[in-house]
């Protein structure tokens, strides 16, 4: 590790620098150019594409930069790609929604890019300080985005709730980090792992662990820290909800994997128990609560809580295969979840809010292609072959079995079956109910592009998953050392 900053650091920070510059340019372009709406949208898409290209350019690199604060490795590159693809899909589904809501798009795109920037740092941070700054960059942007529809009371309410619980969870997380720092004397994850390699335990350490799990549990909306999620998801503008449920979740999982598997492998037996319970309760409560929802955004919120529970299985497994399975699942999850939210955003018209289940009635008669797309997303979320969701679940299941987590695997399968009921209800509404209300549904070209990408993603990785498996495996291999020390302890 070099002692200070070097010129190379700026080269490796290229994606982040491009994204920051692009975000600032979006604001400038929004003010200076005529036809602002399209200028801001174009600039945002251009920035994200460029950043994505820069990220992919670092495939295969494995190094630590900025005096050991950031890692540019396969793991970071994988999660950065996840985040940027979901940002792109979110931006594509935004313009028509923003036009109906009659809000200014400039700052909206700026904030989306800022949130993305925070997520990039969460993916590559290997120091508690960097991770926390990334987390906050993302969270503060989302507090504003959730309340972006200022005259709308539901949006206000979502914003206040998200802000209060987000800030509270930050305080808890930081207190956990401060205790951890006190026990180990360092803030770098590698240093923490080294300091705890002896396997010593103390009350403070146990407390730090519980506070860290609780703080991160809030961010991924794991039960019992999920109370904010349904309300925030329902009240926030639909594209923001979509990004919140995918981007923020993926980045938070990257942070969890970093902190616990890279930073605390010495305590694996302790946090495995905590996450085991969290995973089991989260899946079950999420799925059972989703059964009775009549609002699609709320239903998808509970479904996303349940999915967080599924992905936690990969964390509990704490093996290379478990990490790879969590990554595979997050990758396929972005397509199906964002696709479902894109359809909900599409239903928003001048006279229809479009977030009730009954608003889907007769969708097959009005927009058959959109209905088929929604069907694919629901099948994928439910985990029916040949969709990508099935492959993701298969990997999580085999990772659980391989690590001997048989009971967790059983709970997982039972939950997947329960979830089919409410995904199927969406399909029933689209096909079997034919009352049609509200004005004509318009599909803008950007929205259509988002839907096509989401459908292709949901099917492609179900039929041809090998590319994804290989990438995830390579990325998870960086955990090789941490995992082998885990195995030695057990």
């Amino acid at each position, binding site marked *: 590790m070099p002692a200070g900053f070097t010129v190379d650091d700026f080269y490796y920070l290229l994606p982040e620098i491009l994204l920051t510059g692009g975000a600032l340019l979006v604001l400038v372009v929004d003010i200076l150019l005529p036809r602002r709406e399209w200028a801001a949208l174009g600039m945002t898409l251009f920035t994200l594409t460029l950043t994505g290209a820069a990220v992919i350019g670092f495939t295969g690199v494995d190094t630590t930069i900025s005096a050991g604060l950031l890692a540019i490795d396969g793991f970071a590159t994988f999660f950065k790609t996840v985040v940027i693809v979901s940002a792109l899909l979110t931006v594509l589904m935004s313009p028509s929604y923003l036009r109906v809501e009659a809000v200014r798009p400039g700052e909206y795109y700026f904030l989306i890019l800022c949130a993305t920037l925070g997520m990039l740092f969460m993916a590559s941070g290997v120091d508690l300080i960097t991770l926390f700054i990334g987390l906050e960059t993302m969270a*503060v942007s989302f507090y504003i985005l959730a*309340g972006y529809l200022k005259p709308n009371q539901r949006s*206000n309410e979502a914003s206040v*709730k998200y802000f*209060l619980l987000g800030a509270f969870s*930050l305080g808890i997380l*930081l207190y956990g980090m401060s205790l951890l720092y006190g026990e180990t004397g360092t*803030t770098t994850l590698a240093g923490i792992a080294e300091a705890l390699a002896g396997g010593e335990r103390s009350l403070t350490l146990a407390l730090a662990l519980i506070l860290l799990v609780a703080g991160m549990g809030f961010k991924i909306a794991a039960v019992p820290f999920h109370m904010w999620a*349904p309300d925030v998801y329902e009240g926030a503008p639909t594209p923001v909800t979509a990004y919140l449920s995918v981007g923020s979740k993926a980045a938070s999982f990257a942070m969890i994997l970093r902190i616990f598997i890279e930073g605390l492998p010495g305590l694996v037996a302790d946090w495995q128990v905590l996450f085991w319970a969290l995973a089991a309760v989260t899946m079950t409560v999420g799925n059972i609560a989703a059964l009775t929802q009549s609002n699609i955004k709320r239903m998808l919120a509970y479904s996303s809580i349940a999915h967080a529970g599924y992905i936690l299985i990969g964390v509990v497994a704490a093996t290379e295969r478990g990490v790879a399975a969590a990554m595979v699942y997050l990758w396929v999850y972005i397509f199906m979840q964002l696709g479902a939210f894109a359809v909900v955003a599409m239903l928003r018209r001048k006279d229809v809010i479009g977030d009730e289940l009954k608003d889907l009635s007769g969708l097959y008669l009005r927009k058959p292609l959109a209905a088929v797309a929604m069907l694919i997303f629901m099948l994928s979320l439910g985990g029916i072959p040949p969709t990508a969701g099935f492959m993701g679940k298969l990997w999580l299941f085999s990772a659980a079995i391989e690590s001997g987590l048989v009971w967790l695997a059983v709970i997982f399968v039972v939950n997947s079956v329960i979830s089919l009921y409410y995904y199927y209800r969406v399909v029933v509404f689209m096909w079997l109910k034919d009352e049609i209300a509200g004005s004509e549904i318009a599909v803008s070209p950007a929205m259509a592009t988002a839907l096509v990408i989401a459908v292709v993603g949901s099917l492609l990785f179900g039929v041809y998953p090998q590319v994804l498996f290989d990438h995830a495996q390579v990325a998870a291999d960086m955990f090789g050392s941490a995992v082998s020390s885990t195995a030695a302890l057990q």
Partner: protein
Amino acid sequence: MLEITPLHYSLLSAALFMIGVIGVLVRRNVIIIFMSIELILNAVNINLIALSDRLQDLAGQVFVVFVIAVAAAEAAVGLGIIIAFYRNKETVNIDEIQIMRW
């Protein structure tokens, strides 16, 4: 003569943290809840500085500078959000934030 050691500061910070957490859980006014959250963040700061002194390591103090900066950003955004909310609802009572079920 009892000397004040970093441990005492850590105990102070633990007490502040508990006061903050209880404040968040029992108070009904959004502004007061927000103040309690600030209390938690300051508990973190005191703890980090005490530990930094005990460990003779600067990282803890660097951490504090970042926490203060982030807390300031959060305060700006948070108060803005609360004002936007107040303009529509004319209340800052958490019990009346209930268009959607908690």
